[in-house]
């Protein structure tokens, strides 16, 4: 069996809880009345294997431990316990060699020199990666084409849109032609068009360039569309791993209900969640032009559709709202996530 691109075993990362700041807090600590010292476990006994050439999604809400896991795998953090290997190399003992094999794209707009041009940014990092000048120039030109920034390469990054900065991040992450690319929330904060363009770009990394990609996201759609396999992560732990289809089948339940309602009040989602036979109800969208809100309901196992429909209609009516549409939908990855973790992705 070929060696996996990434392997983590019982990987744990804790952080010291930061003490409360200020003179009052200092005095409280001095007299023994401060909050107890402690640790926060950001990554909690994670076992993980990612195959070579696989597109692997890490799906979880903010604070699930996804970024910490990426930082552990990329040598930016030391594990508290457990082991992790990337491309067969230990992230602690062989940190320097791991850094040669891995590319990392951290989300957000920082992590670039805004007063340098896109090309100058790439040139600087190519030299830190010990690339001969001629090879670096050729590689930079090729990558600027891949990320569709060739015609804006000589403009300062401060003039780039968020999407362009993110694409430049991807180019920087690929400079060293890494075996493994770790992408931390690459589409966060992007408009739909820019997010689509970044997704298309990163999908190509496995399909056209044969890279192993690990993508962290809290966008269900992104994980579903891009990933060969997805790990559902919550509170530092990986709760389930599988293909999106497997996860939907395993955790998504038989079906979900979509209810469209006019004049829905603020409390309607909570009231729908209390309907007998509904495990969870969330507001899934709002169309202000029509004044219509959309709710997604996950039935408990064994709940009958007819009984539910009547109870939902009655609840909507009692809330002073009007039921516009009631339909059965196939379970999504988000439904699977909600059932597996008991949390939402927001």
């Amino acid at each position, binding site marked *: 069996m070929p060696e996996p691109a990434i392997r983590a075993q019982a990987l744990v990362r804790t952080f010291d809880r930061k003490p409360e700041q200020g003179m009052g807090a200092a005095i409280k600590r001095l007299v023994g009345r401060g909050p107890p010292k402690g640790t926060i476990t950001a990554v909690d006994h994670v076992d993980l294997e990612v195959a070579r050439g696989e597109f692997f999604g890490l799906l979880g809400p903010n604070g699930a431990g996804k970024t910490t896991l990426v930082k552990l795998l990329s040598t*930016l953090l030391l594990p508290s316990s457990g082991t992790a290997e990337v491309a067969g190399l230990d992230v602690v003992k062989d940190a320097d060699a791991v850094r040669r094999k891995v590319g990392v794209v951290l989300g957000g707009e920082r992590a670039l020199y805004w*007063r340098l041009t896109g090309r100058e940014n790439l040139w600087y990092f190519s030299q830190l990666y010990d690339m001969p000048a001629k090879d670096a120039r050729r590689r930079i030109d090729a990558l600027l084409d891949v990320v569709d920034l060739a015609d804006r390469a000589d403009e300062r990054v401060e003039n780039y849109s968020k999407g362009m900065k993110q694409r430049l991040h991807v180019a920087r992450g690929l400079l060293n032609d890494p075996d493994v690319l770790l992408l931390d929330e690459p589409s966060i904060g992007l408009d739909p068009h820019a997010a689509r363009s970044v997704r298309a770009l990163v999908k190509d990394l496995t399909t056209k360039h044969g890279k192993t990609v690990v993508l962290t996201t809290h966008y269900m759609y992104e994980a579903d569309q891009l990933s060969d396999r997805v790990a559902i992560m919550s509170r530092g732990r990986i709760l389930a791993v599988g293909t999106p289809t497997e996860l939907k089948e395993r955790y998504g339940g038989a079906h979900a209900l979509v209810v469209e309602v006019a004049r829905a009040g603020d409390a309607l989602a909570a009231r729908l969640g209390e309907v007998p036979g509904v495990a969870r109800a969330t507001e899934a969208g709002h169309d202000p032009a029509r004044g219509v809100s959309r709710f997604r309901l996950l039935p408990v196992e064994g709940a009958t559709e007819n009984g539910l429909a009547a109870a939902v209609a009655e609840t909507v009516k009692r809330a002073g709202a009007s039921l516009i549409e009631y339909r059965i939908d196939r379970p999504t990855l988000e439904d699977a996530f909600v059932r597996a973790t008991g949390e939402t992705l927001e």
Partner: protein
Amino acid sequence: MTTTAWGRSIRAALYKNWRLSITYPTWLLQRLLSPLVWVAIAVYAYTGVADPARIAEAFAEAAGTTGFTGFLILGQTLFSFFLGMNWRGGMAIQRERWYGTLEIVMLAPTSRVAFILGESVYGLLDSGWTVLLAMVIAMFAFDARFTVAHPEAALLAVLLALLAMVALGVFFSGFYLLTRSAGPLSSAVQAPIRFLAGVQFPVSALPTQIQYASFAIPVTYGIAAVRRVFLAGGDIAAVSGELLALALSTVVFFAIGAYLIGRMEKEAKRRGTLHVY
């Protein structure tokens, strides 16, 4: 890591800093004005209380030279180099934190010491031409005269003084990392070093106990050596003590700095504070 890789890291730092610095042209004003004004303050502080002939006489007794304007210019020149190192090399890690680029720099498989060395070398070149230009202006403005009787001694004194400053930059970089307070610390060390190194007066004017602190700082030896060869025509033998002290301090500060940088990177990764400033 190979020497080629070190070279590329240093070249990368020079390139990045040069490209960034040309986007902040107003810094030039400060770099040119500051050393000139400091020299002028010191010159007028002396000439304001006594006539130049009496000052020259007093300087000959206290510092072994009558050329007190040259004495002040050389002191300020070396000190300005120190400031360049302190700002560029010492603040290198902290500056990347400000830019938000420290983590991606740390992701590169390059030597951290090479990275900081590159920043220091840039500081040397960047402060070099502005400081020298300012000092040439000061030379003409205050009629300073230099007597270099032994060019080899002058070359060695300048070279070792600059190397010691670069090592000091690497040391400060590691030292500042200990506290995550590079900005305030880097500002805090400037005035004491200006005072202790004898930038504007002979170190011999200080009480003996304070002189012990003066001679723990390589900047003091650099200034002393350069003054002796440029003002008193000293040869290598005349400055051998200072040269030895500069060479030793280069090795010691570089070694401590390199150790601290490695130690602090590990500690920051253990505590998860690499990106925090």
